[in-house]
């Protein structure tokens, strides 16, 4: 038999590949523990209950946006409009509460999701129909949506007084000490993570990002799938806007500014390949948690907040370099297994 790898060594190589990939989530876990341990050493209150609650709450919206962003990036696209969608959705939901104070709270979420879904649908449509790179489409959407937001806001702002207290509760309520916000996002992460492994259509997202030409030849409805990814990303960003309002209860026209890059950074740090094809929802969520933890750690150590972004950038570089190194290593180990078992 030629050129065929015998089962065991190949399995071993794969297992090693798998272990390395899992090591990515492990690696983020270890980094998290390290950051928390070191910070606690210098500031004992960092591990207090309220501080941990703050860590989880602060990461929640980023992790939620990260779920949608992961779907999009896995298809070899990117959604840069999420930050603007958060701002628009938060203001629209808040404004609706101002005009209809008696509106049931659940409608606040529905409206937020709808606002995001519209933007996501437009992004998806333009990207798939015109074939303009999504980087350009969503960069334009970033500014257009922010512009629409500024027009609607028109210099005003939403104050805590006009947001129903029941809605605000969601932003700070704790279930047995665990922030409700975090629980909501954890549920979304769990569902999305499971779905990405278990359904044909979600596997097709990976296929599209892994080899777009082959995906077309395999009969995968590439356009429909990519559109759906943008729709989900937009909708989750809309939900994120509603949660933003619940958490802060104050919104002007700058809400969510710059979130898109933090989210992309979190997703990439979490092991989602920037050119698509691989990565997990859990990894992306952990990436968001790590970035947020580092930010808060720097804050509690009285490091100038200006360092936050530099650290996020450095971490991004480390993550991408690590990815590159990892994929080279995996490729080499898979190749050498093969070479060793060629008998021609």
């Amino acid at each position, binding site marked *: 038999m030629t050129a065929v790898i015998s089962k065991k060594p190949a399995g071993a190589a794969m297992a090693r590949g798998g272990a390395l990939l899992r090591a990515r989530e492990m690696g983020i876990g270890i980094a998290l523990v390290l950051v928390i341990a070191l910070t606690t050493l210098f500031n004992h209150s960092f591990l207090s209950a309220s501080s941990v609650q703050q860590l989880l709450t602060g990461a929640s919206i980023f992790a939620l946006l990260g779920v949608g962003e992961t779907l999009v990036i896995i298809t070899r696209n990117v959604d840069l409009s999420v930050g603007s969608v958060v701002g628009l959705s938060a203001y629209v939901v808040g404004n609706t509460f101002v005009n209809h104070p008696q509106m049931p709270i659940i409608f606040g979420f529905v409206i937020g999701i709808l606002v995001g879904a519209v933007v996501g649908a437009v992004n998806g449509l333009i990207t798939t129909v015109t074939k303009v790179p999504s980087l350009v489409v969503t960069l334009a959407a970033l500014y257009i949506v922010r512009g629409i937001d500024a027009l609607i806001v028109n210099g005003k702002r939403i104050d805590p007084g006009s947001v129903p207290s029941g809605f605000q509760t969601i932003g700070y309520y704790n279930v047995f000490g665990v922030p409700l916000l975090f629980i909501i996002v954890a549920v979304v992460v769990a569902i999305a993570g499971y779905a990405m492994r278990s*359904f044909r259509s979600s596997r*097709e997202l990976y296929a599209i990002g892994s080899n777009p*030409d082959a995906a077309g030849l395999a*009969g995968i409805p590439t356009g429909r799938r990519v559109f759906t990814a943008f729709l989900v990303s937009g909708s989750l960003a809309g939900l994120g806007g509603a949660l933003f309002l619940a958490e802060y209860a104050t919104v002007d026209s700058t809400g969510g500014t710059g979130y898109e890059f933090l989210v992309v950074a979190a997703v990439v740090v979490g092991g989602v390949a920037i050119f698509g094809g691989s990565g997990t929802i859990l990894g992306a969520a952990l990436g968001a948690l790590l970035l947020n933890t580092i930010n808060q750690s720097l804050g509690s150590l009285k490091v100038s907040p200006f360092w936050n972004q530099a650290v996020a950038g450095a971490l991004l570089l480390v993550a991408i370099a690590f990815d590159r190194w990892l994929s080279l290593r995996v490729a080499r180990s898979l190749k050498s297994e*093969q070479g060793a078992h060629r008998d021609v």
Partner: protein
Amino acid sequence: MEPLLVLDHATKSFGPVRALENGSVTLYPGEAHALLGENGAGKSTLVKILAGVHRQDSGDLTIAGELVNFSGPAASKAAGVSIIYQEPTLFPDLTVAENIFMGRQPLRGGRRIDRGAMNKAATAVFSRLGVDLDPERLAKGLSVADQQIVEIAKALSLDAKVLVMDEPTAALTQVEVQRLFDVMKTLRSQGAAVMFISHRLEEVFASCQRVTIMRDGNFVSTAPIEDLTIDDIIRSMVGRNLESLFPKTITEPGKVVLEVEHLTSAGVFTDISFQVRRGEIVALAGLVGAGRSEVARAIFGIDPYDSGVVTINGKVLHRNAPRESMAAGIALVPEDRRQQGLVMDLSIDQNVALASLSRLSKGGLISRSSERNLALDWAQRLQLRYGKMRNPVATLSGGNQQKVVLGKWLARNPSLLIIDEPTRGIDVGTKAEVHRILDGLVAEGMAILMISSELPEVLGMADRVLVIREGRLSANMSRAEADEDSVMRAATLQSTESIV
């Protein structure tokens, strides 16, 4: 017997270009049918119509007696047509099993993918094929042969009624080709039809029962294999005498221009030594992936190498110094002209002038008129067919694009021309013109190192044939010694008589 698949007088145009004028083929259950023709004969277009990638402008496609009209690749798949493309179409980030079952993974409750069942089914297909491949490994890092096996497994698991294989053997070793033939036999015995596209005619004779020949987008003939000889087939494919496709003037080679001694790059190629003289074409033959292009890139200085010496006109070249190589008189026309040879959005004259800018510029400014004059000169000498010099080079046909790349390098007046796949994807007519140009250059005293995967081109144009097999020089033959058999043997087998 009722035919499985009939394509009748299909036509297909892309803009003004008529890729297929009369695509006709009939496949019967249980037969292996060869589709033959030169590059540009319309085979790929025909295959893509069967695949549902393109839709024919006119003409009927009938499968199992029913008229079909494919809306896309999924529809073709559903109708039982399975295609194995020349380039594997796998998803590197997914497992082998997922690659096989993408879009039709076995499901369990709640429409969730049943990974256990999927891996088991993949293993079952592999055992039918008699191979032992781990279904859970990633497709990333598979050898080309193993990728091909995954593609075949895909087709097999689909229970394809019609299996189309577009040059599946180009990168396979002899043993692997044999196994592929066994698979074809199994499929045929189950009543499937196999359409086989290959440039290796001996494989066609070994495995197929009927042959359809195409030329310039047209159906030429269909005949049982036993009624044909290799000469008949070539004559029908080319439509004229071979001599006119490969004009060759035998000249006396002069002094050594390029000398390569013991060139080695770990894991890529090993101990490569040869010479190229003035006035001769030396062909580097071998299978795709054997390391030929890598040797050329190392000589030119694009890729580094570990040991060995490259001498041009008596001057030893440093490693990894393409500027020095250019200054010393080497020109490299790369294999992939769209990616590496041309700037597609620039105009024709700008592309021609691109490698000669330092000569054309005065005080750092490029004179448009000198650019234009240079291009006009070369366009005339190479018989370039173009609209306006100011048009983007992307508007030219493949063959004329290749002439632009040639002109760009020839404008530097090199003493050694390295040309990688000079006529890939070029229609037959222009192909002969490119060959005539190469022949003329050699007659004027240039030395040419030509990499080619097309055996007729190697045999027709080369004064000497070097064969590389898995990174090693496996043969160095004179024009007289080289024939189809000896070159293929050196390219695929461990030959005892090979001259190293």
